């Protein structure tokens, strides 16, 4: 039996599946869908598209070669990345999420802390939810190296057998965790935007975007352990710190072999980027002609800082010399597609809309109720931006 097949009687040749298939593996031949098995990647987008007729059957869960002794694995772990002795903020977000998952699985939340003279930071991890903190405090782990971090984590995992390991999708995390996963012969899902537990099967449901975010995929790691996932910054929420929480700090000694390095770190150079890259920003706050004068871009910058976004501009403001061209959004500027676009004092001329109308959520603040921007805005406030924005900043701070 082929792993994916078309139920010929049910197929009406509507070609919805053809349009939904990312690798273009389906064609309509004589009014019936035909799947090219060489191209199919079993993502199941076609099944989803054929909800009405249910003419596509996919046997996705077949027996796997790699297997772990699943009952032996317990615990949800979070890799507590630290850089220069400071724990990365994504770790606290993961602890917040990990706590929920551990709760559903009726197991403990652990954290793994690697570094040199790092033990004192363990308390912070307990504060934010960890029940146990596994600390490896060794000069060899002071700097991040893929070899030592991956092998150390593997050694710890092999000994303590956590069922889930979560890591921040940072430069460090995305670099060494794939190594650890392959060494552990287990599955890893990167950049998850959603995590949940399938309570029936006690599996971690890992949801992530694909194709630049236009499709979402839910992934499981059914037969191997641990189930590993990386999560980006600002996707999950840290839980409130609990000063009265108690936790165990477990100091581990790691074998010399795991700490051996094939790479040498010669130098580290810090470079703080002055501006957030507009094209890649998740949130953009833009100002336009309604600002009146260049100094007023200050409130745009303030709002941008409050929401952690980049500063954009309409062409009018750039042409008037109020802000540099690198901030211009629009037909002759940059095209952006952030999660949230806040347009302040921008009328919404076609040239500007062309650059931002595919943003997920568009908020418009403008004095003129007839401004065209309100026709594309998800949420609009008719009002004086000099009044609205300070109140908005205040409200967001709460």
């Amino acid at each position, binding site marked *: 039996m082929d792993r994916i097949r078309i139920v010929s009687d049910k197929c009406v040749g509507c070609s919805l599946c053809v349009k*939904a298939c990312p690798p273009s593996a389906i064609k309509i031949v004589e009014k019936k869908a035909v799947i090219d098995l*060489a191209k199919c990647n079993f993502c199941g987008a076609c099944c989803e598209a054929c909800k009405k007729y249910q003419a596509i059957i996919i046997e996705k869960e077949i027996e796997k070669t*790699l297997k772990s002794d699943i009952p032996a694995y317990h615990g949800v772990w979070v890799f507590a990345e630290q850089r220069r002795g400071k724990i990365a903020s994504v770790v606290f977000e993961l602890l917040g999420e990990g706590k929920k998952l551990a709760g559903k699985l009726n197991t403990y939340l652990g954290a793994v802390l690697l570094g040199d003279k790092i033990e004192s930071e363990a308390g912070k991890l307990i504060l934010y939810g960890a029940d146990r903190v596994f600390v490896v405090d060794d000069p060899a782990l002071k700097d991040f190296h893929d070899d030592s971090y991956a092998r150390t984590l593997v050694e710890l995992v092999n000994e303590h057998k956590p069922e889930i390991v979560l890591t921040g999708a940072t430069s460090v995390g995305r*670099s060494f965790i794939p190594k650890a996963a392959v060494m552990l012969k287990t599955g890893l899902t990167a950049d998850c935007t959603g995590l949940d537990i399938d309570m029936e099967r006690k599996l971690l449901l890992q949801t992530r975007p694909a194709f630049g975010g236009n499709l979402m995929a839910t992934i499981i790691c059914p037969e191997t352990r641990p189930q590993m996932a990386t999560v980006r910054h600002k996707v999950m929420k840290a839980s409130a710190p609990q000063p009265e929480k108690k936790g165990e700090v477990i100091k581990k000694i790691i074998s010399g072999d795991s700490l051996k390095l094939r790479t040498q770190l010669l130098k580290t150079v810090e470079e703080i980027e002055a501006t957030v890259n507009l094209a890649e920003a998740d949130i953009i706050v833009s100002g336009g002609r309604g600002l009146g004068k260049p100094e007023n871009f200050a409130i745009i910058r303030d709002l941008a800082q409050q929401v952690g976004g980049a500063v954009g501009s309409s062409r009018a403001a750039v042409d008037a010399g109020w802000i540099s061209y690198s901030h211009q959004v629009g037909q002759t500027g940059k095209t952006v597609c952030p999660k949230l676009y806040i347009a302040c004092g921008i009328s919404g001329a076609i040239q500007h809309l062309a650059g931002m109308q595919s943003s997920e959520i568009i908020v418009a603040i403008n004095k003129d109720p007839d401004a065209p921007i309100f026709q594309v805005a*998800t949420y609009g406030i008719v009002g004086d931006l000099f009044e609205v924005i300070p109140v908005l900043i205040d409200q967001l701070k709460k």
Partner: protein
Amino acid sequence: MNIIVSIKQVPGTTEVRIDPRTNTLIREGVESIINPFDMYALEEGIRLKEKTNGKVTAVTMGPPQAEQALRQALALGVDDGILISDRAFAGSDTWATSYALSAAIKKIGPYDLIICGKQAMDGDTAQVGPGIAVHLDIPYVAWIRKIEEIKHDRIKVERLMEDGYDILEMSLPALITVVKEINTPRMESLKNKMRAKKAVITTWSAADIGANPDYCGLKGSPTTVVRTFVPKREGKHEIIQGATTAEKVVRLVEKIRPVVR
């Protein structure tokens, strides 16, 4: 110097958009392209080949049509293209993919450096490169934005981090993944295009590369996709009402809170 570049053919829809009326993909443009990050890997490989008078081989795993990606690589200046293609590979996750590719690389022969693009724009996982490094047991560094120095047995690189960069050194053979800051990929040249058209692309099956089918395809993939769906978008347009500015703002913040942390 022998360089191997691992590339992937991805759908050419860099602007994959969803048709809101039907909730389906809108595909425009060419059907398949070389993964954009791999273009930087190819460029770096070709530059190294030119500098060291060496050879660069591109390798890819995919359906028979992935041959096109290899011809494109040849049109840029790569010397050889190898395709590994087999029904057994269908449905591979990154574990199974890196396993198969490393088997192919073993068959290609001795190499000094393997270059991969940072990630593929359809899967976005950035896992295949490191996976290959583990299977081949060679040192690896990710996010390379500059090769500072390369000698016959050592390489010095700049790794891009969020807050700056690190300078590392490691022995060869090794694997690196590159970011787009590393170079500007060249255009195809007519002579190379013509050579690419006539070239014979070597195709290997799972058996040819000695890949155990149990470790390939769906069977060899620890992860499984259970569902692929289009994220719901709200197509609403709401003017927020309120007696005062403060009221309106409170309502607005309620709505945008989930997006803003």
